[in-house]
């Protein structure tokens, strides 16, 4: 199977878009941006022309890093100020919407926050990279770096310690397991019911220690997701960099069977399929037949690749001209939405031009290829 992608919409935001979520009917998107939380009323799928304006409905004291929508009316957001906010959405949407919950959940950034499929839990990860040894290995955090919170009141259900910085988190489709990964390539899986850590292993493929410019660690795992059957964990980032400040590592994903002891890598992106650049988004297609990985293109042909879940080979690609931070498929699987950011432009005519974007693509599956 090969995929063809046809862009049907491009919607700008004032600043970089770090995450977004969609209402089930796809009539509205909510975006976590560097300067706050935005709502955007999306045109119908067959309307490729209209460019609606996003409306800022709230903000944190720093970059909003994650956003999640529960039951169509509860909008969670977390940010680099370490806070979790909840807004209750009422029609028509006001601007701004004051949060009903504004809780400091981390001393440092919330790198990423996700909502469980059953909407009972939120998981958020944190951790400041501080020098812990002569070679700049990370220091153990003073606070737990992985937190599972109740989606009803934001209270901590479980919390765990994983070496900073913990840069991504996922909850499995059955809402039974939490997985998190960090700067050093450590991947941990926790059981929600018992609060036990059930797996912890390290992949050395994503982390650089600079031999050219910097004697410190850089890179790590930036995206993590479970397979639809929850049996595998996929992680993404950038392969080892010769020059740690050039961002020239391979676009890379790896797949692990996490229930084995020790967990085992069973698949990874094929070198022939990939170029260079940091990958920071993973998403499975609703059918489970393929998944998408996206990020920044530094060298190569694509910055969003679609991979056959069985063979691991690339079956489709997109070159968006922006760093993709989030990928979401429509529930029917016919549309893929990509959110991201370009480089920040300089002031023009006294204003900062837009540089965050949400893009919409139709997916055509070609089974003859």
């Amino acid at each position, binding site marked *: 199977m090969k995929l063809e992608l046809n862009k049907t919409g491009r919607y700008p935001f004032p600043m970089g878009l770090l995450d977004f979520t969609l209402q089930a009917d796809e009539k509205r998107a909510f975006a976590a941006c560097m300067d706050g939380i935005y709502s955007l009323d999306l045109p119908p799928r067959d309307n490729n022309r209209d460019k609606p304006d996003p409306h800022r409905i709230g903000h944190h004291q720093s970059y909003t890093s994650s956003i999640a929508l529960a039951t169509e009316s509860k909008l969670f957001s977390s940010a680099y100020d370490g806070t979790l906010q909840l807004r209750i959405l009422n029609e028509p949407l006001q601007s701004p919407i004051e949060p009903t919950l504004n809780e400091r959940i981390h001393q440092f950034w919330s790198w990423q926050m996700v909502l469980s499929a059953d909407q009972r839990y939120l998981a958020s990860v944190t951790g*400041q990279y501080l020098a812990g*040894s002569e070679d700049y290995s990370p220091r153990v955090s003073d606070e737990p770096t992985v937190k599972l919170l109740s989606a009803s009141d934001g209270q901590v259900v479980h919390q765990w310690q994983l070496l900073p910085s913990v840069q991504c988190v996922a909850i499995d489709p059955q809402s039974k397991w939490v997985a998190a990964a960090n700067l050093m390539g450590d991947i941990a899986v926790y059981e929600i019911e018992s609060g036990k850590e059930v797996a912890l292993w390290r992949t050395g493929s994503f982390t650089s220690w600079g031999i050219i410019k910097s*004697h410190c660690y850089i890179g790590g795992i930036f995206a993590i997701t479970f397979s639809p059957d929850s049996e595998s964990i996929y992680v993404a980032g950038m392969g080892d960099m010769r020059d740690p400040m050039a961002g020239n590592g391979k676009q890379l994903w790896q797949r692990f069977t996490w229930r084995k002891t020790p967990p085992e890598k069973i698949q990874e992106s094929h070198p022939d399929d990939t170029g260079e650049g940091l990958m920071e988004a993973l998403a499975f297609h609703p059918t489970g037949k393929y998944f998408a990985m996206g990020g*920044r293109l530094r060298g190569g042909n694509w910055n969003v690749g679609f991979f056959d879940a069985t063979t691991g080979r690339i079956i489709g690609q997109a070159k968006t001209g922006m760093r993709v931070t989030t990928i979401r498929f429509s529930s029917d699987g016919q549309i893929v939405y990509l959110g991201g950011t370009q480089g920040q432009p300089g002031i023009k005519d006294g204003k900062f031009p837009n540089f965050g974007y949400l893009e919409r693509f139709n997916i055509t599956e070609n089974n003859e290829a």
Partner: protein
Amino acid sequence: MHSVEHPCASGSPPGHIDHRLHRRLFLQGSLAGAASIASFQGLFTLPAHAETVKQQGKKCILLWLCGAPSQFETWDPKPGRPTGGPFGSIPTSLPGVHISSLMPKCASILDKLTIVRSMKTDQNEHFQAIDLLTRGEPPRPPFTRPLLGSVFAQQFGQLENPVPQFVLLDPCPEGNEFKSFKASNWAGWLGAEYGPVRFGGPYKIDHVSLPEKMSELEHADREALRSFFSKKFVNDHQEAAVKSYNTIFERVKGLMKAAPLFDLNALPESDRLRYGPGTFGLHTLLARHLIENGSTFVMVANGMPWDCHVFNHETHQMLVPELDRIIFELLQDLSDRSMLDDTLVLIMGEFGRTPHLNEARGRDHYPNAWSMAVAGCGFKPGVVYGATDENGIDVAENPVDQRRLFATIYQALGLDPHQTYNLPGFPTFHRVEKNATPIAELLA
């Protein structure tokens, strides 16, 4: 007309044998040699000599933030602005002045620091900018202007002192443009004796122990023989290079005696805990120790970690807190030892970083508006000089280029910024060209 400095010891042009020797023997830190190591105290058989060596002349520690740190994440935050990045700002001990929230320790002692927020230079490539900000002037081939450290070594150093006067501590053997710069002629027209001694990797000096089978006597005989042939070669060829070569041997002999000074493990563990655990902090502690014991200028670097074209915030979240702690501990120690009046602490890179974030989570090179910090030795503490606009895009008041910076540094040291170098066969050079004036507001 200003007074005249020493004539050039080695004013030969690039490519000359002198430069090849400097490069190989001084800058690669290749210290092949042999001698048994006495304790540091054993260096000084006469107490009076020890006191002379340790006398309080002008000293300098340069924390060289190679690669160029972001002014937004250090001294000139712009919270809430589109260019500001994710980190906030915090109040300091100076009323109304805020710095990055990544620097709480420096915030508590900002009244001891001097901050320049209006650096504006014109080189945006590393090699050229490092050259500019360490020498104070763009190159004028074939003449090579000495680094600030070499000027320090010449003006305040003691060549007879076995402790190296100009030391570069940099454990990173690579470093792209910085590596290239390290291979250049640092002492320039002042001559090899004012060049740096570089140490990298482990903190002890390698290759300075006598081979087991060689006695002290045999080593002395070999040195006498080498010295004889060198003199003969000089007489026959009149090569300035040989003088440099001899200087190196003298330097190595001194290093062999001073080696214990470089043993960090000999320093109190409590000090290592305060400065460490990272290499940059440990080397800063070592710099303090060297300054206390006779070195004149110590430059501390650690490759080019600040060159954050990717992961700017992800890297600065680690580097800045380390720098914050190091500056705090260093200034505290120098103050406790009553050394701050005579010790200049310079904290700077070769430029700043762009207000605009690039697509790779990074900030790029930016010489148009950036910041640096100074403390001690004639600088007025508690001054924040200059300002940038609300987005940090340009200097809004009191721009400072490298000439005015160097003029101010020389003035603070009690050196005439406009003094001429009397170099046979050379054009007239000044310590600082173009009659750049010191910044009076920065001087105590």
